[in-house]
């Protein structure tokens, strides 16, 4: 496995390429004092945790005037010594410094995620924290960034550790009973309650699943309605209102058009569909099929109609009741039965629509209290689901008066799964996969 050679000194550019005012280069290794003194041409050891202006040399060639910091292991991100060089921006300088240092065999290029892997393998962070670093970098919205930051700070890890401690306590009670108490037996009702309380805590974490998936992938909001109902106008209007994250993709009128914007910290993907009408033209039918699929996968449908009769169409399309019914062109159209009336011409009703949309988003993720939620990624969701299944199985067995030798075994199995979230043993594949998802320099 390629992360193995951790005795090497590794180097990488942490900032992304392109023209910028500075770039940051990170170097990590067991002891970097020598390297520091060599490239800065100084005699004294570096003072940890300070930033200082230095010239960087390789073999007497001046490469750049830089700001340089030294972090001494184990009190660093990787648990090893780290040098961070703030050099001048642009593609050339940072690349030049890295290449020259590598050519001198003072370091080698780091692999994606290798700095974080070293932090993990040196016990500086657990797996959840490692994953959160990647999430933080990928996040495009406030909510996602905040939740990732919480995990980096150990919020999720601490809760999992607390649950583990609770389960260990129950297990040790039973083990004591099995090994040292020949006559007495722990009370089944108490055991049931104690195990159940751990499972309830896991269920509480698990209730953040939908929330997590949505803050990660964003919400799908689909615009639907008959041709010329005003969908594209509303689409453009909403993008003008919110902060556009991704530029809209071009398409023919029969294709869908997508754009992403942020609404109150949520990533919202808005999809403009082809108008929905009855047709026998093959090409048009394909467009209609596509619209139907979008509607099926939507978290929220924004349906635009112009008269009361149009409502029958959305009734037919939206069996799950996830639509907001919008009467468009409210400057000319009047009808009842709609949730909100909007005019893109004079902006009437737009604020009201956005408020309604946010309410609906909260309804979809089933929370108003974002603070109470965790971000749990797919891997963690999977493990937590297995834990809940195994826990429920244990409770069922307890109801059937399972003997305590078997209960203890089930508890050990449960603890093994718990360990998988934070510190999996002998799961090289999982660990590899997680870190290879990182970018270089992390």
């Amino acid at each position, binding site marked *: *496995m390629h992360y193995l050679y951790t005795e090497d000194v590794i180097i990488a550019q942490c900032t992304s390429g392109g023209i910028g005012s500075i770039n940051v280069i990170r170097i990590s290794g067991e002891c970097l004092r020598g390297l520091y003194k060599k490239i800065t041409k100084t005699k004294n050891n570096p003072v940890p945790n300070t930033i200082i202006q230095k010239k960087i040399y390789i073999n007497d060639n001046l490469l750049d005037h830089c700001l340089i910091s030294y972090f001494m292991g184990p009190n660093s991100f990787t648990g090893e010594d780290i040098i961070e060089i703030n050099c001048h921006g642009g593609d050339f300088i940072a690349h030049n410094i890295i290449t020259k240092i590598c050519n001198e065999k003072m370091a080698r290029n780091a692999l994606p995620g290798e700095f974080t892997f070293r932090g993990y393998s040196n016990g500086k962070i657990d797996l959840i924290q490692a994953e959160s670093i990647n999430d933080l970098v990928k996040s495009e919205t406030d909510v996602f960034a905040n939740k990732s930051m919480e995990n980096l700070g150990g919020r999720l890890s601490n809760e999992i550790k607390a649950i583990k401690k609770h389960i260990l306590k129950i297990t040790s009670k039973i083990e004591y009973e099995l090994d040292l108490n020949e006559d007495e037996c722990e009370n089944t009702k108490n055991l049931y309650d104690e195990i159940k309380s751990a499972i309830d805590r896991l269920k509480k974490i698990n209730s953040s699943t939908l929330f997590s998936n949505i803050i990660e992938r964003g919400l799908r909001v689909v615009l639907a309605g008959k041709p010329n109902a005003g969908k594209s106008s509303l689409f453009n209007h909403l993008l003008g209102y919110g902060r556009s994250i991704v530029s809209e993709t071009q398409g023919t009128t029969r294709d869908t058009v997508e754009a992403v914007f942020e609404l109150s910290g949520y990533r919202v993907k808005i999809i403009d569909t082809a108008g929905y009408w009855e047709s026998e033209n093959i090409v048009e039918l394909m467009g209609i099929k596509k619209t139907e699929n979008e509607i099926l996968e939507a978290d929220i449908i924004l349906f635009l109609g112009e008269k009361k009769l149009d409502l029958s169409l959305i009734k037919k399309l939206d069996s799950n009741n996830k639509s907001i019914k919008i009467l468009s062109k409210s400057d000319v159209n009047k009808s009842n039965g709609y949730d909100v009336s909007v005019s893109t011409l004079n902006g009437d009703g737009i604020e009201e629509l956005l408020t309604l949309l946010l309410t609906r988003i909260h309804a979809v993720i089933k929370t108003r209290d974002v603070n109470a939620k965790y971000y749990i990624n797919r891997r963690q969701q999977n493990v937590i689901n297995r834990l809940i299944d195994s826990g429920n199985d244990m409770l069922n067995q307890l109801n059937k008066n399972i003997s305590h*030798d*078997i209960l203890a075994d089930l508890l050990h199995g449960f603890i093994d799964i718990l360990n998988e979230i934070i510190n999996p*043993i002998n799961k090289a594949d999982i660990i590899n996969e997680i870190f290879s998802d990182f970018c270089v320099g992390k």
Partner: protein
Amino acid sequence: MKHHDIAIAVVGGGHAGVEAALAISRMGRKCYMITMDPSAIGRMSCNPAIGGLAKGHLVREVDALGGIMGEAADQTAIQFKTLNKSKGRAVWSQRAQVDKIKYSKFIYDAVLADSNISIICDEVVDIGVDNSAISSCGLRSGRILNISSIIITAGTFLSGKIHVGSSSYLAGRFAEPPSVGITSSLVDLGFVTHRLKTGTPPRLLKSSIDWDKLDLSPGDDDINFFSIKTKGDHKIENIPCYLAHTNENTHKILQSNLSRSPMYSGKINATGPRYCPSVEDKVVRFKDRTSHQLFLEPEWAGSKQIYVNGFSTSMPEDVQIQALRTVRGLEECQLIRPGYAIEYDYFPTYQLKSTLESKTVRGLFLAGQMNGTSGYEEAAAQGLVAGINSVLSIFYDDSFIIRRDQGYIGVLIDDLITKNINEPYRMFTSRAEYRLSLRQDNADLRLSGLALKYGLLTKKHAKIYNDFLQEYQKIKNYLHKTKVKFNNKTQTLWDHLKKPESNIFNMSIKIPARPSVLFAVESETKYEGYISIQSDRVKNIKKLENIKIPRTFNFLGVPNLSSESLEKLMIVKPETLGQAIRIDGVRQSDVSMLSLYLYKK
């Protein structure tokens, strides 16, 4: 290698030494048994019981491998009891109260009658090594024995020192001298040694106890004996034991005299057993408990001497008697002999291989209490394994290793060579990750097949086992083949038996079988489902067991191991990745690095 008529010397005639010598003999080889006092062969130096929680499992396994302990206990028992009866049969354990005198006589007779064992009354003072292999041993009398293998089972005798209050004297056991030459010979060979401590409670005069004030603790009427060789109709006396309880006054007396206990005054600085603590330890450590249970056991049938289980102590005699007399029923009690603590040399077991042979000296085996264990059963199991391996090592260049999933003996030895033993090691069921499949009821099925393969069983034993196995398989087939209708569902008897409420003894099974067979089959049905979950879980561990670490492996070459892990790995030199992960003080992340490295190789 040159073989003499007698190539192996067993040093010591305790539970480890006896099993070692008898195993060597059953394998058709001869050995010396060197003991300072032949009349002490098979002596029970502490409590008058064999078995107990997890220890009962060990006795069953020793029996399944041909050992004598189970049979001796069955034949000399005065009471039998199944412990943990309310908690699932994987943790059911037998305990026999035995007649100590008859027990050691039974063993003594067996050893004496064995023509392959030559008893020498002497003391080993020197161990001769030639080219990293055992060549001889020198005795106190000046005699030198030319041998190829030596199994040292010195118990608590190595530089043993007894403490009672402030007085202390050199001794191997009560009224027996210590052995002093072996430790220095082993140290000369490069062995590391440390001190451990253990204790034994006082013995009381039976007639001085007011028995009417104590609670009765009777044995079972329906007895499951340890040995497959013991006939089902064997009868025992069933003499009861009695329960007494300490109280706050007892604790007060012990508390106020702590400075007179050598453990607390700093006179002993060896580590004592946490799981079998002295009564003064219990009082200090469990301050909020106002009472501790004492178990009064007769030492033999008609014994005038009563063993006070739970009152192990090294207090001065006057404090012992004063404290005991606060206990209801013991107000007038008289000591026959006081409790004492004993300090002795032990040899950290990372110096041994899984065969209990030294990693550095060929033919040198250590077994029993000097390996840091406590208990007769743990000692017997090690003696047996060492005896078998000494024969295999010298004559066949082979080895006999029981894996952790095969038996508690495997767990015991694997733990010894990987764990940092800093207090006497006692077997617990929680030490076995395969606990559900390592039951007392299937000990023969788990191990006797293996024993046959290595020629460890007598002809008689082999026949009994084969009969058992046949019956077992017949019943199993019958249950799989026979269908019954139950609540309108047709299912096999086998599946039907999985129900918690169904009982094999209530079924009309047309094939005759002894109860122990029926019980073993029933356990298998009932645990089958859970064991398959268990084996899923431990599959990972098993994978690690199969990854061998070469003996010459350079741990320094593995990048980024923490220095504490590296130190432990280099001392212990684990033979497999599975062992590496179980070494105390080795970090999980380091084992994960090691595994990545070995996988790659």
